[in-house]
């Protein structure tokens, strides 16, 4: 009975794609990123965020 209720709940959630989307994990698809430029861009953005944060953090000490 409980399993049936859980499965009905699961079907309800799955149909709305909400549950899988809510899993908190970075999944690298297959061979990695499809677009190398995007990766390089994000790496640069990450480094900029880190440097700006260090500067802000030091200023607000």
């Amino acid at each position, binding site marked *: 009975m409980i*399993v049936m209720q*859980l*499965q009905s*709940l*699961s*079907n309800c*959630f*799955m149909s*709305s*794609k*909400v*549950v*899988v*989307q*809510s*899993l*908190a*994990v*970075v*999944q*690298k*698809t*297959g*061979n*990695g*990123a*499809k677009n190398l430029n*995007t*990766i390089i861009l*994000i*790496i640069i*953005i*990450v*480094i900029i*965020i*880190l*440097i*700006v*944060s*260090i500067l*802000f*953090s*030091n200023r*607000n*000490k």
Partner: protein
Amino acid sequence: MNEKTQQLFKVIIIFLFYFIYTTVISGVLSLCGIKDELIAVFIADLVFFLGMVIIYKDSIKEGFLKFIKNYSLSKKIIFIVKWVAILFAVNMLGGIITEILFPSLEEDGNTGALYSIASISTFYMIFKTLIFAPVAEELLFKKTIRGLISNNVVFIIASSLIYALINIMYIDFNVFAIIDVISYFIFSVILSYIFVKNEDNIFMSMLIKFFYNLIPLTILLLGIGG
């Protein structure tokens, strides 16, 4: 070279390794004759996971001991239930709003990849969501960055922004990507807040992420099995 610059280089190297480890290790395994993509990705994740645990083993141990010592059983349960419920409510709300606003939108790449992996290998899915994500990802996005940024607010914003950006790195850019950034950002803000509020105890955010992921994973696996 001062201490902060050394720390910055350390963080950048860890992140660069994070970006390329799957491709590099899969390539090496392919040269050794291991052609199965799932096995290669699993071994790559395992190597990164073990590396992060070895680097930060003292912090994990210290956090675990603090949690055991400072919290009674009832407090432990209340702490976990409270934060998991908050995270779940926030994420579900975000997902439902997206569904209402953009009902015809297809699932994003990250979601699609997770769903297909769950149907191929339950074991890998469990490893990835209950072990790798709570431990390796939390160490990467919280502990590593915290070493650089001492200001709490700046740390919460920076680590959450980086987490959100990296989450959408492997998907195509569309409306979903923008919504995903916001949703991942809010999720990470809550986890970073838990980390900072508990005197930088990484074990706390790991624990919350573990129990949080347990709910959708259970529903997902039941859905696939049913």
